[in-house]
């Protein structure tokens, strides 16, 4: 079953049409539209994550980390608090994604809230990606400290973000509230100006 074609046609992410340029050999910024995002919180005074993990089919990560299962990614946000990032839901669109209902039905004191449209998902990748982030992020990104599988919720410039190192390109996946997305993209492109110009074969896309 595929997503409702009528709805797909009218869907507009916060960066639809707003991320025109920003790719070069040393660094690239891209929009990752249409992901299903769920904020999951379990009661912190008891271990409510077991039931969720069986419903999800993989373990939730510890503080400052991510865990993944194929295309599904879980990011630690705080004690008893995770962001789930899954492929776009199939089937007819409902007010909330099926994943939300599945988690809610898993039992335990937990809340599952869909935030797919509440965040823009970006990927910043390339050898210069850490340098771009360091222009506005006070977290230590050295591979000894922030390796693959690490995540952080922090400030990037003047936007609150969550980001995780997902591969060794390196690629950082960045989640930012939709209303801050255009600001953050403008900031990232500005911070990357020198690096984008390092590459004579620079293209837009």
């Amino acid at each position, binding site marked *: 079953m595929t997503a409702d074609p009528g709805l797909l046609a009218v869907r507009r992410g916060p960066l639809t049409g707003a991320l025109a340029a920003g790719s070069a050999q040393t660094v690239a910024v891209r929009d990752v539209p249409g992901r299903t995002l769920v904020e999951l919180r379990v009661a912190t005074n008891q271990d409510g994550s077991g039931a969720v993990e069986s419903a999800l089919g993989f373990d939730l990560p510890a503080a400052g980390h991510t865990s993944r299962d194929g295309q599904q990614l879980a990011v630690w946000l705080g004690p008893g608090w995770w962001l789930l990032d899954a492929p776009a839901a199939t089937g007819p669109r409902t007010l909330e994604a099926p994943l939300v209902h599945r988690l809610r039905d898993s039992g335990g004191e937990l809340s599952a*809230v869909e*935030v797919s449209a509440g965040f823009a998902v970006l990927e910043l990748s390339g050898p210069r990606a850490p340098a771009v982030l360091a222009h506005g992020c006070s977290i230590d990104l050295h591979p000894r400290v922030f390796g693959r599988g690490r995540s952080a919720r922090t400030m990037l410039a003047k936007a609150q973000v969550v980001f995780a190192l997902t591969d060794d390109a390196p690629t950082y996946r960045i989640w930012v509230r939709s209303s801050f997305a255009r600001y953050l993209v403008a900031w990232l492109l500005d911070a990357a100006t*020198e690096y984008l110009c390092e590459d004579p074969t620079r293209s837009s896309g």
Partner: protein
Amino acid sequence: MRITVDGVQLAARPGDTLASALLRAGRRVLSQGIYTGRPRGLVSAGVEESNVFVQVLSGSGEPMVRATEIEAYDGLRVRTLAGKGLLPDEPDEARYDKTFAHTDVLVVGGGPAGLMAALAAGESGARVLLIDDQPRLGGRLLASRAIVDGLAVHDWVSSMRDRLQALPEVTVTSRTAVVGYYDHNYLVAVERRTDHLGSAAPATMARHRLWNIRAGQVVLATGAHERSIAFADNDRPGIMLAHSATAYAWRYGCRPGRRAVVFGAHDGALAAAVELADAGVEVAAVLDVRDVVGADFAAALARRGISVQTGATVSGTLADDDGVLRAVLTSAGETVAADLLAVSGGWNPAVELFSQSGGRTFWSEAAAGFVPDTAAQPTHCAGVLTGAVSLARVLSEGAGAGAEAARAAGLDVTEPATPSVEGELREEAAPAAYFCVDSAAEETVFVDLQRDATLHDIRRAVGAGLTSVEHIKRYTTIGTAADQGRGSGVLAVGVLAQLSGRSMAEIGTTTYRPPYTPISFALLAGRDRGRLADPERVTAIHDWHVEHGAVFEDVGQWKRPWFFPRPAESMDEAVRRECAAARTGVAMMDASTLGTIELQGADVGLLLDRLYTNVFSSLKIGSVRYGVMCGPDGMVIDDGTTARLAEDRWLMSTTTGNAAKILEWLEEWLQTEWPDLDVRCTSVTDQWSTVVLVGPRSRDTLEELAPELDCSVEGFPFMTVRQAAVAGIPARIMRVSFSGELAYEITVASWYALAVWEAVFAAGEITPYGTETMHVLRAEKGYPIVGQDTDGTVTPQDLGMGWIVSKKKPDFVGKRSFARADTSRSDRRQLVGVVPVDGRSRVAEGAQLVSHGAVLTQPPVAMHGHVTSSYHSVALGTPFALALLDAGASRHGEVLDAVDDGHATAVQVVSPVPYDPDGVRRDG
């Protein structure tokens, strides 16, 4: 290379600073005393410079920079200054960058100690950041002729640079000055990246970069600044710090003078005399205030045919017609012709960063300078900074400090061997703590050249009864100029010690404040300028608003449509049209900026009972309730509606500006006071977008868009919530009203907000409206806006909302405060309506209410209250305002004057709910 100074072209060589180019060109008079107008020239070759500042006209421009810190480039254009800078009018188009950096060991200073420290730490595998403010590493070695490890200094420095570059975790950054040392080993540095490139600088490259550094350990190898000695007429061009004179000779290859007198108080001055002689300067006399001088140096000078006059000082100087030095008067009564007087009173260790870090300094008699004592942070000091003199000791201290820092950072360290040093003379005679040659001509004995402050000024300050060095600096203004007191700070303390007979230790120094060297405002702003100055938050429908001509209002960081003028329509006309549509037809608004929080858990009702003034736990599933929140002091902090979606799922709305604050408010109580409650909150402000549909015909529109939804009064009653597809998009619809009219809030995932908005708009003759119309509509119903009709001093009762304050609940946040004497007064400022007596005049928001007929020309005039909101009311046909008025609830009918800018308008106090007081319109 050609450079232009005050419109005159000069030649410059690669490696030149502006100062060395000027000196080579024979330019001596380059400034004048700010108050005295006395001619002034270069006194130094580096950051000690306190005379020659210029305005840079080429490139990005600079209002006021030391000539000694500008690297010459082809096309450099400057203007010399006399004490004050000039801000150019042209906008600054340059790019400014910031970066964060983390390191195990930060080494400040790329001189011999810093290089050794970086090597020792780097070889342990530590992450090392070596920061040096010069274009080339090496520090004072660059002007030295010593042999290190068998290599000439330039070669040794190159070999060190190569060794450091071979270490993958070592970063070396030149042309970068560490300017601030703050708490928790946080340091700030300024990198100059393109200034030296002139017109070759790429436009995309940031001109300056601000480094925000968090270091595990810090090695300070900041060296020392040469200190002068004050004497009569010590400000003439040609009088220069001795080691600056040698730096010009040996590093820049320009002779600082033909015939020199050297005047000093330590062996280092004698060393400078040797260097000057070897550079081809005729050394006519060497005066040393001490009775005993270093034998090695005396011998070296003797070999060059120069004798040292001990116990000798400079008693004055003579100038030529241009004011330039022509002769030196000695204490022996001689007049020695000279065009260079090289002065060295000793070294001031560069303790500024150490002092900023909280470290204490002490006066070292051995070093005749203030040196670091106890560190307050993980700081290690090395080299000349500690008072070390010999190169061998500087190198070994550097290696030791680097190793110690790496060890403290948790690494295994093998300390590198200290390089051997040849050709260095041994300094063995103690330096003298000598600062000032007293003179009857005390108004020519300059202590702070840039402030034109003299021995006379210090004497006056002491005579005025001042003893604290802080008072004396403030009285004389010494140390407050653009050189940041580098040339005058310790000197002034020394002069004071000499005058008062007190010790250096007793007087102490003033506190060193950041920054170490000036930082431009633009660099501090970095890229937070223009459209990146502050995030602009926009809704998913924003582009539509722009395309349809909306005028925007800033609400916190949000951009909200204020009104939607048609061509040639004024704001008043637009708002009247929008209001009329909402009252008589159908209108729509983007309400996506309202804060939305989803609460889940068994105890949400209990939490809301404790935080809202009214009861929420009894709310039925599918229903919505309005609530007011107070702080513990009883004052209103927010309001909004909350819907119960399921037994354990609730959706709360907050005001636009308060969304984050209220979520934090909930979390604070849950985490710190009531952790046992089963409640979890999630912000969904960005997830959902809301289109408000208002007006007596709004039901028709909704029925058309949501054919499956029963929109009848009975099927969809006021203050309930439904789910249905709207224009084919899954939506949640609430029947709430902030206008008194029949209204629906249609909420969809923000991905589909534009689609729904456009579908609603296309449903026929629907008028989009903005915040101004929203305000008019709500004011006509007496609905207050938190932050506009309240100001943090207003209770729910003051707003006439006693009905929403539960008497049954044993407690809720704010309740206890209502019982306080002042808070329970019945004559507090209370919300009322006011209408103009003439039926026409709209009173100003912010107008004060006074007794009718009060004489305004005889202040003080007693104020009874003020107008918080004021509009032309389409529904009432007259202007209408809300106001907070003393005992307002009991004064309906009274006539007062509303005063704005001295102009009184008679108004009548009325109920704050003038329109549809019985609420019959909300069902359409």
